[in-house]
């Protein structure tokens, strides 16, 4: 029996708690708590921003003051005190960094724990077979390191912190920032416009196929800190880029706010693949702590034959409020949304997408897989809108929900608006439970209860997992098992 005990322990250690829950002791440069025009000015000054950007931030802030927090989502949480949050926290650094060697070793250590060997990547850059992924890392509010920049620059690809893009490529930023998600869009996007601190900026020039995957890792470290990153990706005519985003945060008893905005602009014949593995701290099994993830992500397919794919694996956060959307403006443009949302314990997720068909022959596909365990609540909320001019537009939606146990809930809320006489819209939805029979069948072949659960859930999610880039898919598969820890028995 000794061997079996060992197996049990190994399984236990794999599925043990939240592995990214460490807190790092890094000196931070923090703005006073709370939000006011002065704080907005403080952030803008810290970033040494041009006047137009400060004006834009202030307009957003003033607009936000008049807005009300949305309450239509099926999520339940105590009122957020927006004056009890730090809006700016940056790891302290003395001077401008010239290379990775100058990044605070403690920060590099954190990234190492997260499994992103920044340093190694740069070192290995010239070596054959080294991972071909360029990484930008955002720590609390500030981008600390971007790898592979030189190689990308050769192709004309710009991949840098957005604060740098403001300085070095103001014409691009000014033209596109807020053009997909304006500050008037919603409560959290208005807040983000006012106080965003950093994020990634990507520009793929005409005709360029980005030679490697671009990746950003977000990490919230400081306590009571909101993270408001802003990502802007512009894919010019005939270009292609695959972009990955990963997120973690330490375990803390209080809730932390994350309100990001992601804007994608896609021109003629261009394609953007945007993949997310979101693993923010979900809170403990009693619902204490965890990230509030209130995010606005939107892609504008402006050009003809343009294409965007959102693939997301959402396993973290106490509350998720997120609807990566596609505005299909260009004729023949294509929007895809592939989503896995796993909620366990007391997590709540209200997530889905919006497909806005404006151009002719536009098509969209939605595949949503929601998994609820424990006492979690998971909602798919999606809008498909066919505009008057969207001739022959097509949508196909599949929403599958899987329930584990009898105390959780799954909800599907599809909205369909059609003004086009020639549009085709299909919606399929299923809800199922993991059966005792399936679990027993796997166990009878030698898998532990948790391995069985992970295998069955991975099967349920397969269509979406297949859409992820290879290196992410493996990580996501493991994450599926870990997220469901404690959901059986």
């Amino acid at each position, binding site marked *: 029996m000794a061997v079996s005990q060992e197996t049990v322990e190994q399984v236990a250690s794999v599925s043990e708690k939240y592995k990214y829950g460490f807190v790092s002791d890094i000196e931070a440069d923090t703005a006073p708590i709370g939000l006011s025009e002065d704080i907005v000015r403080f952030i803008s000054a810290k970033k040494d921003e041009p006047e137009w950007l400060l004006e834009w931030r202030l307009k957003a802030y003033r607009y936000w003051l008049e807005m009300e927090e949305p309450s239509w989502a099926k999520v339940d949480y105590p009122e957020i005190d927006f004056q009890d949050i730090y809006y700016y926290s940056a790891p302290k650094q003395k001077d401008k960094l010239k290379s990775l060697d100058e990044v605070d070793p403690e920060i590099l250590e954190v990234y190492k724990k997260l499994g992103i060997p920044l340093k190694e990547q740069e070192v290995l850059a010239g070596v054959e077979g080294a991972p071909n992924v360029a990484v930008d890392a955002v720590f609390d509010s500030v981008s600390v390191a971007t790898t592979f920049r030189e190689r990308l620059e050769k192709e004309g690809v710009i991949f840098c912190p957005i604060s740098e893009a403001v300085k070095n490529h103001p014409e691009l930023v000014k033209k596109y920032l807020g053009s997909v998600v304006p500050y008037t869009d919603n409560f959290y996007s208005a807040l983000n416009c006012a106080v965003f601190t950093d994020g990634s900026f990507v520009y793929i020039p005409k005709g360029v196929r980005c030679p490697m995957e671009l990746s950003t890792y977000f990490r919230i470290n400081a306590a009571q800190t909101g993270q408001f990153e802003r990502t802007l990706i512009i894919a010019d005519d005939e270009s292609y880029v695959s972009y990955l985003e990963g997120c973690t945060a330490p375990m803390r008893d209080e809730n932390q706010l994350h309100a990001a905005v992601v804007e994608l602009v896609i021109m003629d014949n261009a394609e953007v693949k945007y993949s997310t593995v979101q693993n923010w701290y979900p809170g403990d099994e009693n619902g204490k702590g965890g990230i509030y993830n209130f995010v606005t992500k939107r892609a504008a397919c402006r050009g003809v034959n343009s294409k965007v794919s959102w693939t997301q694996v959402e396993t973290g956060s106490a509350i998720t409020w997120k609807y990566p959307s596609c505005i299909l403006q260009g004729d023949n443009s294509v929007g895809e949304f592939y989503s896995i949302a796993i909620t366990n314990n007391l997590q709540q997720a209200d997530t889905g997408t919006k497909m806005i068909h404006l151009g002719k022959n536009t098509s969209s596909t939605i595949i949503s897989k929601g998994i609820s365990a424990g006492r979690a609540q998971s909602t798919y909320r999606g809008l498909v809108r066919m505009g008057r001019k969207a001739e022959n537009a097509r949508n196909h939606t599949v929403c599958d929900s899987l329930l584990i146990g009898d105390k959780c809930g799954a909800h599907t809320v599809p909205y369909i608006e059609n003004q086009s006489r020639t549009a085709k819209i299909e919606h399929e939805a299923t809800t199922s439970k993991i059966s005792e029979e399936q679990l027993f069948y796997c166990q009878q072949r030698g898998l532990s*209860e948790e391995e069985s659960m992970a295998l069955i859930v991975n099967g349920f999610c397969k269509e979406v997992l297949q859409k992820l880039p290879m290196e992410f898919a493996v990580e996501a598969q493991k994450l599926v098992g870990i997220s469901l820890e404690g959901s059986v028995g």
Partner: protein
Amino acid sequence: MLEIKDLRAEVGGKEILKGINLTINSGEIHAVMGPNGAGKSTLSYVLSGRHGYEVTGGSVMYDGQNLLDMDPDVRACSGIFLAFQYPVEIPGVASATFLKTALNAQRKFRGEEELDAMQFLKLVREKTKELDIKDDMLKRAVNVGFSGGEKKRNEVLQMALLEPKLMLLDETDSGLDIDALKVAAEGVNRLRSPERSALIITHYQRLLDYIVPDFVHVLADGKIVKSGDKSLALELEEKGYAEISAA
């Protein structure tokens, strides 16, 4: 190998097994026959540890260990294989993935090196060839859209790959045409060895033409009412359960 003493078990508060005594030695093949509702499937589930099948009395020793203390996966890893009467569908999980995961879980349990994709593929191709199973089955999701015969063949393939010490076959013959029946029987016969045993649960003696048992038992109302050799199965077929059970 397996020693069942006065085993009692209930399902949903209803007593189904009412004191079973049965000893299976290494290398022996036992057949259990009996009418519907006699407790045949319950016996196979109790031995494999299915949730909801509560043991209320008696004991089961397996290889000198108390079987009833072991979790279902530990029983599987220790060499007990149940070929299901109704194999379960697992959407999205390719049969090959399922087999590889199971085999490696068992190898790991035994302290053996796990097989990589290439080694596994080589092994599984040998087995499919032996059992005349199309490799295409390996790519399909476990039992999803399989015909009755394919499901049973898949069970036999799993068994061939996992090489259990004790095979429990729960009405493997039900719903099979004669060709599929031969394949299933062939799967068991190939594994037959002095170290392996089998418990074959069946309604009809037909299967026993292909897998010749050393012993035949008649199970009625939760008890073994009669035991004998192969000829008992033929006698049953002729006279029916009612007469034998009453005797």
